[in-house]
């Protein structure tokens, strides 16, 4: 197990390394000069060259990449804005703030949004899916399956504005979505995030309903489930002890991927509700050709996905002894 984890972590680091190279190269492939955005109205070739020099953009690409890696690992004192301890992604071209602390500022929003929604959609989605599988073929099942199908077809950029229009602007039942620090005011943290949670988890819950139902139905047809029934174990016992255990594997797999990518920034949700999370930051960094910020957001999101992938693989070992012991 330990060897497996070490191998996976090394693999993840290699992937991150490759990803940073790809991002770096792609950025310079885009025909847009960040210096143009920074030099303002009094732009002339001299000032652009000057900005290039200050940003280090006049150096060869490989050297720039080397500096980037070096700063990331060792930190740097070369920046005009001040010292930049490791992990140093440099300073944003646009805001001049250090990238790492910007990421860390934005992280609580994304974490609150993601974890809150995950709790909701796991409870609702898995609960409905299990109920549908338990009552397979009945009206309950058909309603749940049909409803989940319709909801899965919706998108956040449709459901989000709809919820805002009805629940916030028209009826004033809920607060306008906003992020308030949990430690400062837990209640407004909660009320500000209700609508985003509901919208984000509705769509995920529908997918998890369908997934849990089909995983359970597949498991219930397994021979070992029939054996358990043939031993006289009750339907409920077999459902929760035998079938559920096997269903966990696909569910955990998908959940790991979803959680990882959501923690890297729920771009559309954050944008729809104006929540200042990592997703919004990612979009901004693209708009402003803000390479340090873009690299920071990209690598952070990728790290989240990779970390959760490893967590998922480690979880398999708890669920399935065949993984643990082989």
């Amino acid at each position: 197990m330990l060897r497996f984890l070490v191998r996976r972590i090394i693999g993840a680091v290699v992937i991150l390394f490759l990803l940073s190279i790809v991002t770096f190269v792609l950025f310079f492939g885009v025909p847009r000069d960040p210096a143009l955005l920074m030099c303002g109205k009094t732009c002339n070739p001299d000032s652009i060259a000057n900005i290039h020099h200050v940003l280090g953009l006049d150096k060869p690409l490989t050297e720039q990449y080397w500096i980037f890696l070096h700063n990331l690992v060792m930190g740097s004192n070369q920046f005009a804005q001040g010292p930049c301890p490791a992990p140093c992604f440099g300073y944003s071209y646009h805001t001049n703030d250090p990238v790492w602390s910007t990421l860390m500022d934005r992280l609580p929003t994304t974490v609150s949004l993601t974890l809150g929604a995950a709790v909701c959609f796991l409870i609702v989605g898995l609960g409905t899916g299990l109920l549908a599988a338990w009552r397979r073929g009945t009206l309950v099942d058909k309603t749940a399956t049909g409803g989940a199908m319709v909801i899965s077809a919706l998108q956040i950029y449709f459901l989000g504005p709809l919820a805002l229009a009805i629940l916030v602007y028209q009826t004033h039942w809920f607060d306008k979505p906003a992020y308030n620090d949990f430690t400062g005011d837990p209640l407004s943290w909660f009320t500000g995030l209700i609508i985003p949670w509901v919208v984000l988890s509705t769509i995920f819950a529908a997918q998890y309903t369908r997934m849990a139902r089909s995983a359970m139905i597949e498991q219930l047809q397994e021979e070992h489930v029939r054996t358990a029934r043939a031993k006289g174990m009750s339907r409920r016992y077999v459902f929760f002890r035998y079938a559920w255990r096997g269903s966990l594997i696909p569910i955990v797999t998908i959940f790991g991927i979803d959680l990882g990518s959501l923690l890297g920034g729920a771009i559309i949700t954050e944008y729809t509700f104006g929540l200042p999370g990592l997703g919004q930051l990612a979009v901004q960094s693209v708009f402003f050709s803000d390479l340090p910020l873009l690299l920071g957001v990209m690598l952070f999101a990728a790290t989240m996905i990779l970390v959760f992938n490893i967590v998922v693989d480690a979880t398999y070992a708890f669920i399935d002894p065949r993984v643990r012991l082989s």
Partner: protein
Amino acid sequence: MSTPLLSVRDLHVSFKTEDGVVRAVDRLSFDLERGRTLGIVGESGSGKSVTNLTVLGLHNPMFTTVEGEILLDGQELTTAPEPELEKLRGNKVAMIFQDPLTALSPYYTVGRQIAEPYMKHNGASKKEAWERTVEMLGKVGIPNPGQRAKDYPHQFSGGMRQRAMIAMALICDPDLLIADEPTTALDVTVQAQILDLLKDLQQEFGSGIIFITHDLGVIADMADDIMVMYAGSAVERGTTEQVLRSPQHPYTWGLLNSMPRLDSDTGARLSPIPGTPPSLLNPPSGCRFHPRCAFQGRVAGAGRCTTERPPLATDRASACHLTADQKRTIFIEEIKPRLG
């Protein structure tokens, strides 16, 4: 004669499918006495397994219709409520399945899976059940049972897994053991060991056994009585000696003919039964075997085989319109010489 342990009367089982109603078991009746072994033989899809899942009530009630009677010790099972059946399953009636790898859960230890029915049916504590489990594993010939009980099924070999299945089935000392092709998935040498084990344990526990197989060699070894099934019905029954020494039904002849023999001429070809098993969605009229039967021309009364379903009497009987004399002479003169 006392009441039989298991008595199946006029059993009909049909499934609703998207293509129509499949009559998986049709007009099936048989008895099993305590301590005896009934072998049920037939091709895949002949209704052997379905019959026995129905005995345990393990069919899916949403898609399945069951008519007729299944009496276990006089208790009607087809109409019994689910909690009643749960008390019987694994307790009075136990089942061994074909493939012990898929029939055991990969997520729990072998010991836990064996102990479960003992705790459920005997209200035993965890400790008692574990002791009994280890004892049973020892009985079925697992070396070092105390340790091996803590292993998972994938750490067992195929033969050991089937031994564990048998231990699980017998832990509550059932009156009836249904073994559904218990040796099909095993190596031949392991097969023989498992069969011997089952016979020994039957001596010890006195259970009645229904032994489902398509292997006539295995059945000859195991069964006291044989019932041959074709397309959801029994076509021939009798003692093992009777059915294998002087079979009366053309389908049984076909089965025997298609069996490879070590002592036959090398290079002699097997003679399989022509055609394929009928679709149970739309079974043939009259005798269900008639489209594949070479002897229907000899039946007195032209076309009887295609219109009239031959009945199957109790005890020694075969469901065929040929007269008893015809059956005897055809077997002795035409079939037996080919069997060598």
